[in-house]
């Protein structure tokens, strides 16, 4: 299906992000390679989540384009859009499980909508996906009965329901205690290693960035563009100063305190 660069699942070409009345970022060009974990990082309000919303086609760019293979997300017709959407799964910040359905129904929903499995098969697959994230026991629970970390795990199971080659995770560790957050990082690495899923991760948690990222993309809120894209360790050693400062926990180098 992807006829472009053999390693690129997704390419952004000089993308500009804007919300009404304000430009957030411009000139973003990067690609997501097969099997990599790419972290979108940056301070609060720099447009990380907005960038993710553009990459999954919920918002259309002020300029530039988002390409899946050869296909522009903004210009795809309904049929093609439906096909492109099978390419990725999304976990939103709070999980965004549909609150009127049980966890199991949440995971079964995309399966029963978009696959021709019978009801039994759908339930089996849903249970398995929940088992992959360690949530099989919560199959019949309503989302409101789950803790924040469990909601996010269940949401990852829902995002993986249709075996997309690419997963978007918006702030998976935000608001979690260090243990849950570390086990979520482990889950993310496992998904990549065992299923070969590429993962785009939006986060500003340093521990997650160093634990999981193959490459990290830094969005600078002041420059309004990306100022670095490389392995986080290398950025820490030789990246531009604001990026190193960010990765060093925000302490400015050599400034007397």
């Amino acid at each position: 299906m992807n006829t472009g660069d053999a390693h690129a699942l997704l390419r952004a070409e000089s993308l500009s992000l804007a919300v009404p009345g304000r430009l957030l970022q411009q000139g973003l060009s990067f690609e997501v390679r097969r099997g990599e974990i790419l972290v979108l990082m940056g301070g609060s309000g720099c447009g990380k989540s907005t960038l993710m919303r553009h990459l999954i086609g919920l918002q259309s760019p002020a300029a530039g384009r988002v390409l899946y293979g050869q296909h522009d997300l903004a210009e795809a017709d309904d049929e093609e859009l439906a096909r492109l959407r099978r390419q990725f799964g999304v976990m939103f910040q709070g999980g965004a499980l549909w609150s009127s359905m049980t966890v199991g129904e949440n995971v079964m929903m995309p399966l029963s909508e978009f696959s021709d499995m019978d009801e039994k098969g759908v339930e089996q697959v849903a249970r398995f996906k929940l088992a992959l994230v360690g949530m099989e026991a919560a199959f019949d629970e309503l989302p409101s009965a789950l803790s924040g970390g469990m909601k996010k795990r269940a949401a990852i199971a829902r995002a993986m329901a249709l075996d997309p080659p690419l997963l978007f995770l918006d702030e998976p560790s935000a608001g979690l205690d260090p243990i849950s957050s570390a086990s979520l990082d482990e889950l993310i690495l496992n998904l990549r290693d065992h299923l070969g899923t590429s993962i785009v991760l939006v986060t500003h948690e340093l521990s997650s960035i160093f634990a999981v990222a193959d490459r990290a993309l830094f969005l600078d809120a002041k420059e309004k563009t990306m100022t670095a894209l490389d392995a986080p360790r290398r950025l820490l050693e030789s990246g531009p100063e604001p990026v190193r400062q960010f990765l060093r926990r925000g302490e400015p180098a050599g400034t007397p305190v």
Partner: protein
Amino acid sequence: MGEAQQSETTLGSEAQAQWLQDEQGLRLRLSGDWRGKRSLPPLPPGASAAAEPETRPALRIDGAALTHYDSCLAASLWALHRSSKAPLDTTGLAPALSGMLTLAARQSANDAQPSRRRPHWLTRIGLAWQARYRRTRDTLAFTGELLIAIYKALRGSTAMRGEDLAHQLHATGPASLPIVALVSFLVGLIIAYMGAAQLQRLGAQAFMADLVTIGVVREIAALMTGIMLAGRVGAAFAAQLGSMQANEEIDALRALGLNPVEHLVLPRVLAMALMAPLLTTFAAVVGMLAGLLVAVGIFQVELLDYLYRSSKAMTLAHAGIGLLKGSVYGVLVAMAGCRQGLHAGRSAQAVGEATTAAVVQAIIWIVIAASALTVAFQRLGW
């Protein structure tokens, strides 16, 4: 300005602050117990007129005689720094106090200025029109999507789930019966009573039956049902969809390629379209019953006479028009609720605003539709 100036403020028994002018510039001498105190004396007149902000001499703060203090004092000093636009020299203060002020100065130096300056008035007019345009476009797009979803449903290829529709039917219909019953009974009572008082002057209270029956069946039952549904069900729709929007649940549907209009809006609108005429019928019966009680109980109209006149007055056209109006109002209420909920902002505040907007919009739409339909039917002679 050259000579030494003094102004003194005495605060409480011990807290004292005093501006002193010496060869190095202005110095504020603080002494005593400053816990919970916050009024510093104003700068001596003329002191703040000096030069550009960058070149103003530092205001020295002398806290040698300070016995007690808390962050109130730090806050007042910070306010002084902000209003005088002059730097503070805090070396004469206790480390805790000067530390606090230094920290505030350092933090605000690299403060992310969220460039929220008030835009030019022309820009503001433009932005306001843009927002208005966007709202109108959203409403139109929403209506279009809804029509497409209904068309799909009529062709039998809808993604709407039957259980969603069943759930909404229950939530809109049976659950609204008590409030609809109460309101229609009372409104029926009022119409009968007011009407009878006028008719009695002509000795024509026998016509009460016509008045109540036509009034209630043709207009009032539908109107009251619509307004009750706006408050009870339309608001709930807006709040449900609004909090789903705030929680990104609607984005989760969209990202999967599931159409929120088909999954969330269609079952609600259909439920209202089906339930509103039933509720209108119920409201009409209750309203007529109230009229009958007033007529028979208070104005001594013969029961059989009333029933006979009532059944004569009630034509198929009146009943049909009443039911049609009920359905129209119900659909409008559902549309207003879903439209506002679906386009709500992403905060708890926005959900509340969407709910209010849904009820207001529903009632406005109902009143406009009521006027248009009434005039239209009168013109048609129905």
